[in-house]
Structure formats: C-alpha cells, structure tokens
C-alpha cells in the first residue's frame, strides 16, 4: 500500500471510529495497531514499548500533571474564585465586565499553565456558571472561556512551545519572550470584541444586580485580600522561573505548594478538597496522557511508513514563493487540526516544516510562534478539537456540542487575524526577543 492510500485509509478509520464515539487515545492506538498489522505485520507492535518510554519518560510533559494539579487545587479551594471576585469588584459596573474579567483571569491562569486543557478547565469551572447565571449570552460566555483558556499555550510557560523548541533545537526562553506581544494583542482584541459587541447588542450581557454594592466593608476587604494573594501566587510561580529557582516544568510544583499554602492561610484547606483534587487531577492526567500516547503510537506508525516524506515532497514540489510556502504550512497545520491534537501537530510539523522555513530565510522563532497561534485555532475549530471537548466537559448538561461549535466563530476569527498580522509583520514577534536577548 502506498503512503497516500494508507493515509487515506487511516483518515477514514479515524472518521468512523470517532463518529462511533470511541475514546480518542485508545481509538487512535487501536486503529494504528489494526491497520499496522494488516500492512506491516506483527512487527509494528514493537512501536508500543519505544513510544511508551518516550511519552511517559518525557520530562517536558511532566508539566502536565503539575499544572493540572495546581489548577485543580486552585479551583477546589476557591482561590480561583477569589481572583475572579476581586476583579469583578473593580470593574463590575461596565457592561460585559464579567466577560472582560474572565479574559483577564484567563490570561493570568494562562500565564501559569502551559497546556490548553488546564487553562480551559480552570477558567471554565470558575467563570462559566456565574456568566450564565447572570443571563449572559450562552455563546459569548462559552467563546470567552474557550478563547481565554486557549491563551495558556501563548502566554509563557507553554508546553507546546517547549515541545517546539526541543524538537527544532531552538531556545525556549526566546520563544517565551517572542510570544508576549502577540499574546498582548490577542488579549486587547478579545476585550475590544466583548466591549463592542455588548454595546451593539446589550442583551448579550445584562448589567448585574450589583451584588458587590451590598458587600460589607469587611467582605470587600476579604475579597480584595484573597484576590491579591491569588495574584501573588501567579507572581511567585513566574518569579520562580525568572529568578532561577525552578525550571518551567518544575514551576508547576511550586504552584502546587503555593496553592496548598494559600488554602491553609485562607482556612480553606480540607481533607476532602485535597483528596478530590488529587483524584480528579490523576484522572485528567491519565486522560491527557492516554490521548498523547495513543496519538503518538498512531503518528509513529504513520511516520515509520513515511508520511513525513509525503508531506516534505508535497511541500517541495509546488514551486511556491517563500511566503507561499509559509501560508501552505499554515493551511496544512489548520487541516491537521481537524483531526489531530496540539502536541502531535507540533511533533510532526515542527521538525518537518521548520528546517524548510529556515532554509527559506525565515526565523525559526517567528515560525514557531505562527505554529503556536495556528494550533490555538486548530484546537478550537470544529469538528475535532481538544479545546472543544474540555469545554464540553465543564459546561452544564443543557449546553450542546452545537452551542459550542457556534460560539467559537468570532473568537477564531480574532485569532486568525492575529496570526495573519504576525505573518505579515514578523517584527511583532521578533522585536522583543531581539531587544531583550541582544540578537
């Protein structure tokens, strides 16, 4: 079987298996083994041990359990809530303020977490229900959580950026700095969208019943104090990276320690919370890792059969001008995003596309940031995207998948706009790292 036909067969199998509602990671692994057995023989089973070792013993992926655990501790102890309430106290009077503070809170959470799932699960569990309770438009509420939570991989630290840097041997630090301005632009545009669309259609975001006015000064003080401490926790986590106490991977553990300390200080530390946070984190870690493992088994099989040569040949034969090649790469990644998760896109595309981009005279850091922006879009575009499923997981039962699909459109357009902007003006990405790290 030629690689083109095999790719077609695999895509078809994915489509059918997913349509049946199979668990994604186990399904991908199963398909790879079944199709692999028929085309390669039982030798393909040997892909399992090496893939197991490379995914389960990846120190970079260790950020996943640490950050998920920190997020769960923050949510379950109510510290995440505190951060959100305090921001409401400050700007509660502005129409759409709740959505705006969700974006701000999401950016802060994004500043700590390095993976989309943790960002969305954390921000969603804190802020979705209050928005829906106050009569916010369903789609606005969902879209804001999705767009904000997705910022986790654009605001450092970011696991996909770390993966990109490791597979293309570029600097992680440089990428982190390069992402700052695009992230800032995204945040500003998201807030602008919320303000403008609420002005145009006030029914989307009713002004609240001013619960904050009824707060006693003591309650106000407590809310402010708790919010401040939560912000200090973020500062401490980021600070531990900047001051050389911990590596970005380890900083998640600093966050866990900080969250436990805060919970004790706030007298919110209960055994049940501690246990349920551990249990649900283990569950989420397992879910994430089985997807990563199954998807890696799938892509390793596909790579051993030579798909990279197909993509490489495809991209070389077109005779496009350099920027045309870059646009092509973006399109391929967007298409891959319809079926494959963020990590695998980086795993496949980073080593495959980056050298070509570099050989065409482009900066690998710039290309990496484009890839991250692209992935942010890919994971939240229907039909298949991890961000969509994480959101579905935390949404109330009456929210249908269709609601979620429809909610993403304006936010995807904003992110697409940022992507095009960075593509046309590379200085948006490169100016800051060049300035800060002297070339």
């Amino acid at each position: 079987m030629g690689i083109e036909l095999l790719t077609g067969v695999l895509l078809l199998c994915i489509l059918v298996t997913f349509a049946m509602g199979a668990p994604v990671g186990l399904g991908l692994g199963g398909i790879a083994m079944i199709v692999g057995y028929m085309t390669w023989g039982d030798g393909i089973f040997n892909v399992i041990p090496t893939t197991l070792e490379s995914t389960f013993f990846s120190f970079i992926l260790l950020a996943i359990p640490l950050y998920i655990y920190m997020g769960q501790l923050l949510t379950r102890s109510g510290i995440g809530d505190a951060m959100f309430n305090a921001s409401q106290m400050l700007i509660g009077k502005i129409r759409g303020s709740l959505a705006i503070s969700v974006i701000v809170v999401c950016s802060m959470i994004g500043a700590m977490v390095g993976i989309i799932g943790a960002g969305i699960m954390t921000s969603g569990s804190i802020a979705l229900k209050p928005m829906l309770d106050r009569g916010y438009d369903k789609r606005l509420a969902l879209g804001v959580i999705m767009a904000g939570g997705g910022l986790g991989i654009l605001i450092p630290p970011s696991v996909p950026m770390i993966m990109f840097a490791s597979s293309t041997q570029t600097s992680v630090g440089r990428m982190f700095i390069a992402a700052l301005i695009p992230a800032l632009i995204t945040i500003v545009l998201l807030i602008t969208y919320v303000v403008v669309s609420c002005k145009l259609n006030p029914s989307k975001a009713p002004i609240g019943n001013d619960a904050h006015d009824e707060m006693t000064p003591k309650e106000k003080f407590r809310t402010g104090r708790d919010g401040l401490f939560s912000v200090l926790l973020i500062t401490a986590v980021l600070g531990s990276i900047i001051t050389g106490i911990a590596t970005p991977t380890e900083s998640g553990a600093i966050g866990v320690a900080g969250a436990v300390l805060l919970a004790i200080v706030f007298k919110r530390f209960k055994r049940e919370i501690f246990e349920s946070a551990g249990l649900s984190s283990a569950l989420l870690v397992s879910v994430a890792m089985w997807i990563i493992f199954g998807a890696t088994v799938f892509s390793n099989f596909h790579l051993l059969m030579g798909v990279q040569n197909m993509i490489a040949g495809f991209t070389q034969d077109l005779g496009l001008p350099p920027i045309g090649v870059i646009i092509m790469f973006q399109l391929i990644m967007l298409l891959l995003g319809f079926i494959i998760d963020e990590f695998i896109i980086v795993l496949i595309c980073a080593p495959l596309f980056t050298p070509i981009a570099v050989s065409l005279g482009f900066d690998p850091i710039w290309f990496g940031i484009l890839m991250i922006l692209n992935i942010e879009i890919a994971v939240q575009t229907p039909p298949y995207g991890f961000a969509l499923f994480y959101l579905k997981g935390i949404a109330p039962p009456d929210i249908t998948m269709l609601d979620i699909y429809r909610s993403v459109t304006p936010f995807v357009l904003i992110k697409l706009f940022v992507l095009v902007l960075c593509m046309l003006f590379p200085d948006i990405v490169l100016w800051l790292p060049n300035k800060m790290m002297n070339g």
Partner: protein
Amino acid sequence: AEHNWRFANLYSRGTAYGELYENLGKNIEQMSAGKIKVQVLYSGEGVGSSGILGAVKSGLVTMGAPFQSMHAGELPAGVVEIGLPGGTDDVGELSTLFHEKGWDKVLKEAYGAQGLVWLDPYIQPPVYIITKKPINSVADFKGLKIRAPGAYGKFLRQLGASPVSLAWSEIYTSLSTGVIDGSIGSNMIDHRDGNHVEVAKYMYRLPLAGAQVLPIVVNRSAWNKLTPELQAIVSAATTIHAREQMTKSKLWESQAVAEMEAKGLKWSPEPSAEDKAAWKAAAASLWDEYAKSDKYSAQLIEILKKQ
C-alpha cells in the same frame, strides 16, 4: 527492492549531521545496486532518540545510529565504548584499541548478546563544558551546578561539582536564569545549536572525553537475510561514512567554535599541570566503577588499562 530498511538516527531533519546519515543510506542503496532500499528516519520520526537501540533490537527499524549515553541503562558497555572521561582523542590510538587490542571483539559480543550486529564505529568530536563564570582552576568546579548526565555527572562529582539532570530543551532557560551554572554539550556543535553562549560565556579547555566513538547497529535477523556480498557492501558503506564523519566533524567543530567566539565565547584559562593531574585522577577513579557495571565493560576496561 529485495530489502527495505529503515535507518534511524538522532539528528533532526535538515541538520548537517543528518545529511551524513542520509549519505550513508544512499551509499548502501547505490553500492547494492538498489537491492537494499534505505529510508532514513530523523529525530522523532517514529522513534525517539532514547528508543533507537530498542527499536533496532526489536526490528521496528533495521539500522540505527544510537548515542550510547542514552542507552546507559540498557547496554552499559556502550558508555565505555563512547569514551569514558579522560579517554584519548588520538585517532591512531583509538584505531589500535578497537581493531588490534580487541575492543571490536568485546563489543560485537556485547551488542550481539542483545540481537544487534555491531558495525565499524565512527568518531565524533569531544564533549566540553560551558560555564557562566570562568574556571581558573579545577577547584572552581566545587559547588557548581552543572547539567551533566550519567558518566559525565559522576566525573564532575569527583571534582566537587553538583551534577543536575535536565531535559536538553531546558538548558538554555536554566543557564539564563541561573538554575544551573554550566552544562556539557554532546560536542561544540551542540553548544552552538543550543545558543548556550548567549547565556554562558566560558568554555573549559579540557574535554570531558577526548573523542566520542559511536557505532552503527543493525538488527540481527535483517542482517542474516543479506547475502555475504550485501553484508560486505553495508560494512563498506559504514567505513565510507566513518571517514566522512571524521573530515566533516573537524570542519563543523571549528566552524561552531568560530561562530560562538564571534558571539562572545571566551575560554577559561589554560589549566595548570596540577589541574590536569586532578582531571586525570578523577577520570581514573571512574574506570574501576564502570568496570563493575557489567562483564563487557570489565573486559573493555581491562584492555584499556593494559594500553
């Protein structure tokens, strides 16, 4: 083709070293008149860099260019083979060691025990340490946190340093923020590619190992399917590859050093005679420890000591 081979190496697609493996694949195809077709797999393309040995062993890939330090837990003798700290960089001496004094026989057996055919090795340039502060004497290593895995870590511990385990991709950030004070690199090219000189300026003059000797390994059952003639062709192609590695490595190493110097790389002062003695003593103390790790390592080190 009669034989379809997959050949995994641990360099990324498009890197200079990657091309050498591509050339080896092409040579095997050409010299066998197309009877052996070789698909080259770069870093991460189906097999992770620490999975190469296992993948060749199981037959998932047919041929591999592993980096033995990554397989220290699977095949300890490989760590002795690649070159323990304090080893020579003299090509003539290495050649005698491998071809006349009997290292080749021991290694063939060691790899053979795990279902692997060991083909003639090739030499890559030595391992150096880059530090944030200059090392004026060996005593300056005391208390330094240096990213150095496995054997190199043990060696630096003998000199009073604290070896740290980090993922490769974390070296840059960790040097820049001060999580570590220094790091080894697989070679000068590795230091250059990692942009380490941006965040640590001083290279120590003494290499941790004089030269690194890396093997090409082939899955035994795939090897046995070849006619003796084809086996000879594959061996001949690896000999050509070894020569190419030698000439290109020297060139690339000096280019890497020049590029880093242009970016501000400085060398720590020339080590004193005592420093060199301390360095040697630290290395020698490791030999006995490594000899204990398995019987093949013991045999290799016995030969080494006689030299």
